[in-house]
């Protein structure tokens, strides 16, 4: 940059759209690089050390722009000449990366691999970090808030008698007892009973350890191995923090799609969001399988027959057929039974 040079282009004065032909002269003076803007009548319009002007980074073949502290703007399409002013800047390096060439093939594969890794692992790591950062008080409040809503919207007090409740409580205590001590202490495990005719035989767990079993469930299954399997499964959801992870993950995926996709156009953005929703369902199914395995191990350790969970799905399958809703966010009964068989074969002999 030591040799003096000139570039032709246009000049704009501060805040004016008036465009006039002008020339930029660059030269060294006292060891500093200076630029001057000269009008066609040789009048000097602006002068400054290069270090004090603002240079917009090169971007494609759009005109190069240089703004003086007083607002005077010089614009030129002489890209090669202008590069002498900022050839070593960060913007120029970025511009070289963006140039069309074989290296972009590598970038393309890196993008595909990166997008896959981000979806497969990155989002999980982010969700796990967010879960770790969520204070325990907040998680407890989620349990309380959700339970209140359920009680208000669709649940009635349980109609079970104490003997029926006690039967479930004994199994519950036995299963909880084999949970590692630190897991037990980290959460507030409680078992509740509700009459919820609209959801049928069902059980669900809230993130802080509140567990709800419906009356239908207790009455439908006399076999305690089934109850143990279900409780183990729900405890798995709690211990593996599935609820919060899923909330954070879907939130993160939605924000990432919104930010990365940018101006994809209306049709394509819909497509991306639909695809994202489908992938979220498959994530939910993975969580169910993982909770199944957790529950099998736990009920097995507590001295129950892990085949109980399998019996549940066999009976559910007979009772409800292949329910489409159940299939979407959960794996099909058939697949769950198969997976349970495989997993039981791998369990250690008690």
């Amino acid at each position, binding site marked *: 940059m030591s040799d003096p040079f000139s570039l032709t282009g246009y000049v704009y004065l501060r805040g004016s759209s008036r465009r006039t032909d002008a020339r930029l002269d660059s030269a060294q003076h006292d060891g500093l690089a200076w630029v001057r803007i000269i009008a066609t009548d040789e009048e000097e319009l602006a002068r400054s050390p290069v270090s004090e002007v603002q240079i917009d980074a090169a971007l494609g073949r759009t005109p190069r722009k240089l703004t003086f502290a007083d607002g005077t703007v010089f614009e030129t399409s002489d890209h090669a000449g202008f590069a002498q002013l900022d050839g070593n800047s960060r913007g120029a390096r970025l511009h070289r990366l963006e140039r069309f060439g074989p290296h972009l093939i590598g970038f393309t594969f890196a993008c595909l691999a990166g997008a896959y890794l981000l979806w497969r692992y990155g989002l999980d790591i982010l969700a796990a970090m967010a879960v770790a950062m969520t204070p325990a008080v907040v998680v407890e409040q989620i349990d309380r808030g959700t339970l209140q809503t359920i009680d208000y919207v669709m649940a009635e007090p349980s109609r079970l008698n104490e003997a029926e409740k006690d039967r479930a409580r004994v199994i519950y205590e036995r299963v909880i007892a084999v949970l590692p001590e630190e897991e037990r202490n980290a959460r507030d495990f409680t078992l509740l009973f509700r009459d919820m005719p609209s959801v049928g035989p069902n059980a669900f767990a809230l993130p802080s350890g509140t567990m709800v079993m419906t009356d239908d469930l207790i009455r439908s299954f006399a076999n305690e191995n089934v109850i143990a399997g279900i409780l183990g499964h729900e405890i798995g959801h709690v211990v593996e923090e599935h609820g919060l992870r899923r909330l954070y993950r879907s939130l993160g995926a939605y924000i990432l799609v919104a930010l990365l996709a940018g101006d994809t*156009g209306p049709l394509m953005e819909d497509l991306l969001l639909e695809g994202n929703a489908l992938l979220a369902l498959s994530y939910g199914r993975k969580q169910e399988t993982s909770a199944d395995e957790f529950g099998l191990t736990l009920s097995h350790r507590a001295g129950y027959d892990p085949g109980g969970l399998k019996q549940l799905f066999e009976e559910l399958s007979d009772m409800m057929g292949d329910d489409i809703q159940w299939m979407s966010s959960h794996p099909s009964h058939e697949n769950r039974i198969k997976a349970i068989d495989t997993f039981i074969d791998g369990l250690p002999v008690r």
Partner: protein
Amino acid sequence: MSLEQTSSSHQFKFTGNAKEWFGVWIVNLLLSIVTIGIYSAWAKARTKKYFYGNTHVDGRNFDYHATGGQILKGRLIVIAAVVVFQIVVALMPILGIILLIALVIFYPWLLTRAMMFNARLSSFSNVRFNFVGTYWEAFKVFFIYPILCLLTLYTTFPILDRAMKRFSIDNHRLGTAEFGMSAPIGAFYKAAGLALLWIVAVFAIAALTTGLSLTAFGEATMALENDPASAIAVIAAFYFVFFLGFIPAGVIYQALTRNAVYNGTFLQGGHRLRSNVSALQLFWIAVSNLVVVVCTLGLMLPWAQIRTARYLADHTGVELGSSLDEFIGVQQEATSALGDAYADIEGIDVGLPI
């Protein structure tokens, strides 16, 4: 057919090209993925700068001046708010409803801020745009009009749509020069009528030729378990007719209203905008873009974007009433990127009326 080029009439010119934009786009994407989305703020600034910088009128180009840092700050605040909002909804549904009402009240403010941010950081021929819409105007356009529209069973939708476009255009400035829009309401009704006619025609033809009906669709959904193959065929045919009806109708409406809006838009100084896009060509571009982009796993997206921008520029023009040298910028305060970030995340478009 392009717009004619005379001494006072100038066609917009778009000089971006797909090869060059692919390089910028893929680097944007790679850096955004590597930084788990943080770089996307800089990517947005670079994207807008590329498309604005390559759009010329009479040899002068547009420019975009927001920095990635500004955009990132706005986005971080909005993302934090979204996360807190979601947690509150999970925690205390009642408080969630109160927050939702607060957001509704806040919404017009966010939207005017987004338009202000976008306008003040955009320029043409060295003069910055500005946006001067107020909260109450926005409240009227985004709440009162839609409620009226609902109450009149959507028969006043063209009035609502024109009001929204007027709100955006009439409140934009280029320096001190004011924009104004006087497209007749008849043009909006005509566009809506033609779009509706298209939908009715497609469904009538489909019903007459194939006997496809809503009952058939309902039965097919029911029969999904027993006879999946033929049920899926019926459902697919139904969706095909649905898309053939609604998507072209949307394009017809957009193309016709775009022409009406542009041809009715003027800028102080005697300048008038012109547009002559064709619904058929826009539809062809939208559909072929989608097919090509999907078949190439998104890699041809930059090509599709350049193609759309070039078509729109080729069919947009301005009749100059005086010299483009006469615009004068005004001193304006910086605006936070909060509204802009909100619009990004919600996918709301708040672009310039160009």
